[in-house]
């Protein structure tokens, strides 16, 4: 059933409200907020890579707060065990049964802070739950419910004692983006309010978990013309043949991009996807799924550059697919 214009307008309004709400906590970063909200409404996860103190955690918390749902935070360290994330089965002497104690992963919004500090074993514990929304402990699957979103952060500068995220893990994040430092004006406003140490707590919930599910449902029904999907496919293929790329974008990445563009389109009040949506989201969706050729990497070519260049090379569709 196609989305009507009224539904799209309603979606866009709600989306704007959410953006405005989160923006209270983290000023002047509405683009990143949009991306993160888009990820949430597309059943995706976000990886924020940024320097310490740029507001990654505040963003995650504010987002969690704006949603009338549960949220939790896992601070990743090298000695963190998988069970610390997923939960553990404990023998209840009183009842005489093994009982499953849910780990912090059982929440609507999970903030996985400094994810690259955890050992690969722990990191991979996140894999299953991020892809399938199910935690399997002792052979029993436990659903984490809906909505469910992991906002992971990682710090690009501290290399000692970190474990680079494996490709499979990276592929599971819908977006990888960064916040960056605030501009001068925003910085001054923030400094004036420096006494406030809990900015995220200012954000009050304005949307119910159910509504998030409804919105996600709606977003998935946005119309995408064949020509636009053709464009997505051509972009992804181009990443595989690009000379600076060692490994291009997987099919999972292409599907993620298709999914995200639908949410992005309806968030702009449109009932259909345009090539512009694809262009807007190509870098955050595709860049972290590309492995740059080591030689080019050494020459200073970044994955973002490659995606930008591909966007210039691949001609967007101008007409409906014949």
């Amino acid at each position, binding site marked *: 059933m*196609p989305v009507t214009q009224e539904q799209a307008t309603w979606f866009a309004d709600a989306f704007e409200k959410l953006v405005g709400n989160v923006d209270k906590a983290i000023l002047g970063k509405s683009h990143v907020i949009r991306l993160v909200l888009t990820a949430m409404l597309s059943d995706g996860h976000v990886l924020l890579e940024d320097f310490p103190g740029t507001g990654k955690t505040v963003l995650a918390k504010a987002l969690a707060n704006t949603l009338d749902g549960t949220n939790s935070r896992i601070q990743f360290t090298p000695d963190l065990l998988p069970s610390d994330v997923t939960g553990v089965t404990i023998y209840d002497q009183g009842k005489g049964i093994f009982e499953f104690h849910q780990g912090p992963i059982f929440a609507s919004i999970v903030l996985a802070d400094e994810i690259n500090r955890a050992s690969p074993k722990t990191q991979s514990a996140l894999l299953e739950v991020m892809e399938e929304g199910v935690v399997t402990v002792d052979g029993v699957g436990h659903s984490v419910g809906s909505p469910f979103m992991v906002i992971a952060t990682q710090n690009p500068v501290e290399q000692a004692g970190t474990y680079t995220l494996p490709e499979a893990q990276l592929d599971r994040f819908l977006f990888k983006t960064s916040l960056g430092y605030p501009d001068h004006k925003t910085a001054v406003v923030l400094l004036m309010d420096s006494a406030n140490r809990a900015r995220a707590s200012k954000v009050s919930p304005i949307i119910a978990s159910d509504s998030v599910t409804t919105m996600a449902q709606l977003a998935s029904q946005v*119309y995408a*013309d064949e*020509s*636009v999907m053709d464009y997505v496919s051509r972009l992804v293929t181009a990443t595989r043949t690009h*000379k600076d790329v060692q490994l291009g974008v997987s099919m999972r990445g292409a599907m993620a991009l298709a999914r995200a563009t639908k949410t992005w389109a309806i968030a702009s009040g*449109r*009932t*259909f*996807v*345009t*090539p*512009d949506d694809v*262009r807007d989201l190509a870098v955050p969706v595709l860049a972290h799924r590309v492995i740059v050729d080591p030689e080019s990497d050494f020459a200073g070519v970044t994955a973002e550059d490659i995606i930008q260049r591909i966007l*210039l*090379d*691949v*001609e*967007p569709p*101008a*007409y*409906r697919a014949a």
Partner: protein
Amino acid sequence: MSALRSPLPRLSTTTWVDVATLLTLATIAMVGLGSAFDSIDYLLAGLGGLVVGTLAALAAQRFRLGTLPTIAVAIGAYFVLGSVFALPRDALFGFLPTPDTLASLTIGAVFGWADILTLRAPVSLPDYVTAVPYLAGWLVAVVSITLATRWLPNRTRTPWRSGLLLIGPTLLYTAGVLLGTDEAYFAAVRGVTFACIALIWLGWRRRDSAQVAIAGGRQMLRRKVVGTAAVVVSAAVVGTLVGNLVVPPEEDRFVLRENIDPPFEQLVYPSPLAGFREYTKDYVDTTLMTVTGLQTGERIRLATMDTYDGVSWGVAGAAESSDSSGQFRLVGRTIPEPPLVTSNTESSLDVTIAGYDDVWIPSTGYAEAITLSQAQGAADEDVRYNEATGTAVLTSGLASGDSYSIGALQQDLPAAEALADVPVAAIAPSAVSRIPDPVIAKAAEIANTASTPYAKLQALEQWMITTGYLSHGTASDQAPSRAGHGADRMFDMVTLPTMVGDEEQYASLFALMARSLNYPVRVVMGFAPEAVGGGQVSVTGDDVTAWIEVAFDGVGWLPFFPTPDETDVPQDQVPKPKTEPQPQVRQPPRTDSEPDDLVTAVEIDDSDDEEKTPFVLPTWVYIAGIVLAIPIVLLLIPLLVIGALKKRRLRRRRNAGAGDLAAAGAWDEALDQYSELGFDVPQRTTRRHVAAGLQDQVLDRGVTETTGLTVLAAHTDDAVFGGRDVSPEETERVWTEALASVAIARAAVGRSRRFASRFRVSAARAWAARVARSAASAKSKEKP
């Protein structure tokens, strides 16, 4: 040096292609000399030169010879093989060099150039002229092939360096034009082919130079070569079309031979007519020559004069030469056809010179061949012939004992009735000046009694024959007759009560009168011996005569003989006016009166003519009109064509079947019009980005109004990607928005850009942008 000692160098395929291309171009260039030569021998010699030069250069390359040895080998090859190609007839067994052929090859290399230019084309004599194409081919081949095989392969191949190699063939081509005649030899085909090959070769070279390290450059290669070829071919097509429109007439073709004075300058010889009385006085009984083959009534021509300077009639020199006067040129074995003659009779004349000594060769009609059978110290090369006037000259002068034979065409003499409607020939007139006014007036007076040119001339002829008296002014003649035919003598002829003179004066007077009527006329001096049926006849000074010839359109130069036979001049019977004494009267005061100019016929004519001729636009109006019209037409035609193309484009887009296509067409149309207005339309991006980019450009021009492009982009995207059927109303709305947006942009740009937009076709601009971009990307890819 060690690198030079590596195994013998082998030429790459690229170099072989270079060599082949250069030789092809040189061959095309060589063919251009064809108009200067009379047989195919020149081509054999030229191609032989190319082959010899190429072999010498390749051999030198093969054995790594230094500069001096290379030159030595090349020169050796030039002489050893030259006899075969350039002078096969003179060579021993057709191929072995003899001292003669070697000398000819040397002389030809030095003097052949000048001879080609000064000899009458097509050139056949002297034999050594074929050394010129041979030398040219040899030189171009040695230099170009040496450069192509030894210089270019060791250097980075830039178009400039490749272009340097083209200098040889280009010079050869230019030489072919300059040394040839004003008849182009397949100029369009050769020129276009030459340019196409050269440009495509350069384009191919360019690809070569950029090929250094492009991965997957095959497609680029194909695109470049095909692109170059496409550009070159379209340029050739356009050039051929436009070239045919604006090509100058062949007469305007610049060739050296037209700009070189022939070595013979007749002005250094006195006018033969001025020496007329010499024959009637000094040589009157002297046998000047004996002639065999002269038919009854035929006359011997000595010289033809068509310029008059107030003193004497002269043979036009190269400087004042016109179409009718022709030029004296060295001729080969055969003499070219005269430009204006109708002839059904041929005659041949054997002449043996006795008392005559001058440079002018007595002949008859228009000579077809002149053969000197016995001449002291004179050779064929000393004969100069003017085919327009039928006058031949032996520069070394004729002397007693010389004999020659002449084959000649005789001008037909049609009946007077047949000439009634024939106009005089439209030939550029020769320089005639200082005709005395009474002569002009008298000519006009007599000519007015007849209507057609021939009748007018006959009237003049009759008037002279009937009213004039013949006197050579010798002691035995009855009436005194001054020699010479200067302006004062002519003045006397028409103003004195009795007209007295001989052939010299009558011919001159007749010629001046005819000339005053604007007829192409010339004075011919010669002899009229009493020949009987081709038998041998002695010519004495008494036989000297002069007559005039007038050119008639399509017929030829027809003779008129105005000299009267009447010799006894009536006694001067006019009594001296009696003095009748008049009573003395007081003289009236002197008043300034208008000077009488009673003898200006032109004024009388004018008064009549102005009333008769209807109003006619002056010629300059037409010329100015044409001059103005050409640029306007040139401007209008593309305007109309482009306008029609654009209209068709718009219509097709608007009526494109499906609604989404029609809406997309609106956007495309808007973009094309923006592009034509000079805006830089971003390529390969989405409509939103294009709209933003164009909006910025319009804002940069100081327009505050929004172009509505962003909205248009959104609406177009909606129609295209919305996935629903687009209604005609929506299509119409998008079109309205698109045209409104274009209107804003038109207002934003200046008048000149609006005007320029009429000439632009966005497809061409997009194509140019694509070419520029692919060039840029190729360049960036080149960098490692």
